[in-house]
């Protein structure tokens, strides 16, 4: 094989055993890589209903055939596992030199299994693999741990690390790299912590096998040039995703006060222009020429890397209207190794719970000092932080009193930063996202606004599906970043050409989309299996708040979603996916995508329709 290395590295920290495995070419052709590899490995290898923190759960670090090659935005990898937050399939995408070094070391994925007795880190240098003592790293922040590791192993490597959040099994702990790159929202950092693995270091000195290197280099140069010349490039370099704050405020989609509103009185203080005033540098993922990490000097004089999602969830959603204070909250999340989106979501939730008198603690909207304290309490599971560390679904079940109606999650994963009171298509995208409510797979809200946001038309279902195939399927399996495509008009045909040059295999966009559909149905099968068939369309339905409590501020005051019409969208989505009215894949669909092996398992728990 070319493009793929054809090898997985398996490390069992219980048995302290490492093994290099060749995988079958059909796996590469049917699942491409990244998320595709991850879900197939988890389906095949996890005992059904495995407890996420048990030794039998596995943590997958997976690259794709374009990862680490000199083409646009290819320095990314997928981290995946059975999620302790949702109980289903969980993954995240992180831009890191670790992805490049893993591939140069000769591996397309690392499969981490078992539970170590003592803290360890994994050191991989080409074919040398060691499980090393990490007692001196345990307890350190992600920044401190990575710096200390670099003192030991040098700077020419890629490091993935967890912080106290992961060590203390915070259900939305992430994996961090390069002091600000974060991935694995549904608790991938907690799974790593449960295995007592503080860090993974990759140092690769080999060449990634490529079918036609001359062609790939030529395409790579042309691609970078095309991105650089696109209209809007210079502004992107200035603000990156931070321009989205202004965009969402204008469109009443800025999550505000636990998603009660779509506009924030202090949006001007936390938008891209406010960020530019305190920006000190820019950084981002390897092989990217449109790096979007804006580093500011925060209110404590430290560096903090911002983008739209973390800023919004830690500003408007909790009422903090000062970009430098938001920078502090964001940096603490990165240091502790907890997800900024879920953190902003649970803090917003508990502020509302306090306002409504559901908890004894007084936690007021916009209380920056209290928010800061809560982030540490969550990371160390102190006081009320111990409950917050469980995520908003579990907190609301514990508090009761109808709080489930404004617990802003889908499938247990906290909603990311787009209010959907007046965006039924985006609400469908959140509902059907394969990891729970996340924007990565189908950010349809732009198109939705361009065609009429209040409509419940079939075209919105088609757009969600199209985006899921492109973003959730193609980009997550190749593995490359989705941002050049929409933000700077980088045509999808580039990826077909990159893939051909890297692998020698001719796949059309249609072929990639079919792979995406295969991955989606397998992920859905995984959820149903892990939930032992306790599955219905409510699992794909956004929170009641968006259907029952209209916006009260801004130009769209009075707007909310229509439950009946939205449910019709969901039914049409199921129909086009080949899933039944419960959201369960039909037998014919599973067979069509070569997923016959799931049928006997699923039939133990649900009746499959033909």
């Amino acid at each position: 094989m070319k493009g793929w290395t054809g090898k997985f590295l398996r490390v069992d920290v219980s048995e302290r055993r490492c093994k290099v495995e060749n995988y079958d070419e059909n796996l590469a052709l049917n699942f491409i890589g990244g998320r595709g590899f991850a879900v197939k490995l988890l389906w095949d290898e996890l005992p059904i209903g495995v407890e996420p923190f048990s030794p039998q759960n596995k943590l997958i670090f997976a690259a794709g055939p374009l990862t680490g090659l000199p083409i646009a935005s290819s320095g990314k990898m997928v981290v995946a596992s059975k999620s302790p937050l949702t109980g289903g399939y969980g993954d995240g995408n992180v831009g890191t030199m670790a992805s490049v070094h893993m591939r140069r070391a000769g591996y397309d994925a690392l499969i981490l299994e078992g539970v170590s007795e003592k803290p360890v880190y994994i050191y991989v240098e080409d074919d040398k693999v060691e499980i090393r003592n990490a007692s001196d790293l345990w307890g350190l922040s992600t920044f401190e741990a990575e710096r200390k590791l670099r003192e030991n192993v040098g700077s020419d490597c890629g490091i993935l690390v967890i912080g106290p959040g992961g060590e203390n099994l915070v259900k939305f702990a992430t994996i961090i790299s390069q002091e600000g790159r974060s991935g694995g929202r549904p608790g991938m950092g907690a799974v790593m912590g449960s295995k007592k693995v503080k860090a993974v270091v990759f140092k690769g000195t080999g060449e990634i096998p490529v079918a036609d290197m001359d062609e790939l280099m030529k395409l790579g140069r042309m691609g970078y040039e095309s991105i650089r010349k696109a209209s809007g490039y210079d502004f992107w370099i200035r603000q990156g995703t931070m321009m989205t704050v202004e965009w969402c405020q204008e469109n009443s989609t800025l999550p505000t006060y636990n998603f009660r509103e779509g506009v924030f009185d202090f949006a001007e203080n936390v938008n891209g222009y406010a960020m530019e005033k305190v920006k000190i540098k820019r950084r981002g993922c390897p092989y990217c020429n449109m790096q979007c990490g804006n580093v500011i000097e925060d209110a404590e004089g430290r560096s903090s890397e911002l983008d739209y999602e973390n800023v919004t969830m830690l500003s408007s959603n909790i009422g903090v209207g000062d970009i430098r204070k938001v920078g502090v909250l964001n940096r603490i999340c990165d240091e502790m190794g907890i997800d900024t989106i879920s953190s902003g979501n649970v803090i917003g939730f508990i502020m509302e719970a306090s306002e409504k008198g559901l908890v004894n603690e007084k936690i007021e909207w916009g209380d920056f000092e209290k928010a800061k304290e809560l982030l540490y309490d969550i990371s160390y599971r102190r006081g009320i932080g111990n409950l917050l560390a469980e995520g908003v679904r579990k907190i609301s079940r514990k508090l009761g009193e109808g709080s489930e109606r404004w617990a802003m999650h889908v499938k247990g994963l906290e909603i990311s930063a787009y209010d959907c009171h007046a965006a039924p298509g985006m609400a469908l995208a959140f509902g059907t996202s394969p990891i729970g409510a996340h924007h990565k797979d189908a950010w349809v809200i732009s198109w939705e606004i361009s065609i009429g946001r209040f409509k419940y038309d079939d075209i919105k279902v088609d757009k969600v599906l199209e985006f899921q195939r492109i973003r959730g399927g193609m980009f997550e399996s190749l593995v490359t970043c989705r941002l050049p495509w929409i933000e700077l008009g980088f045509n999808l045909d580039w990826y077909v050409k990159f893939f051909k040059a890297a692998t020698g295999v001719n796949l059309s966009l249609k072929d990639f989309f079919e792979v995406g559909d295969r991955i989606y149905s397998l992920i859905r099968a995984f959820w149903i299996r892990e939930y032992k068939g306790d599955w219905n369309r409510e699992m794909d339905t956004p929170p009641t708040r968006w259907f029952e409590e209209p916006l009260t501020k801004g130009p769209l005051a009075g707007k909310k979603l229509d439950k009946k019409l939205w449910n019709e969208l969901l039914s049409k989505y199921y129909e086009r996916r080949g899933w039944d009215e419960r959201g369960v894949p039909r037998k014919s669909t599973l067979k069509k995508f070569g997923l016959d092996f799931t049928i006997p398992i699923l039939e133990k728990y649900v009746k499959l329709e033909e």
Partner: protein
Amino acid sequence: MAFIRALGYLAEYIGGRSMKIRVDKPVKIRDIIKLPLDLEGRIIILVDGQPSTLDSLIVDSDRIVLMPIISGG
């Protein structure tokens, strides 16, 4: 006066984040705002909240919002 608001990089094409312009007779948006060709298909235009195009006619008192199609954070 028509009010034009431009988000993100589109602000650079109208010389600021917003502007007012006198519109004496109905005029196409593309006749008053010059955008590079590669941006067509990458932008959203709302006139008084309604989806519109560069060929939509505007009149005095219209509120026009130009924004890039973006894909989130």
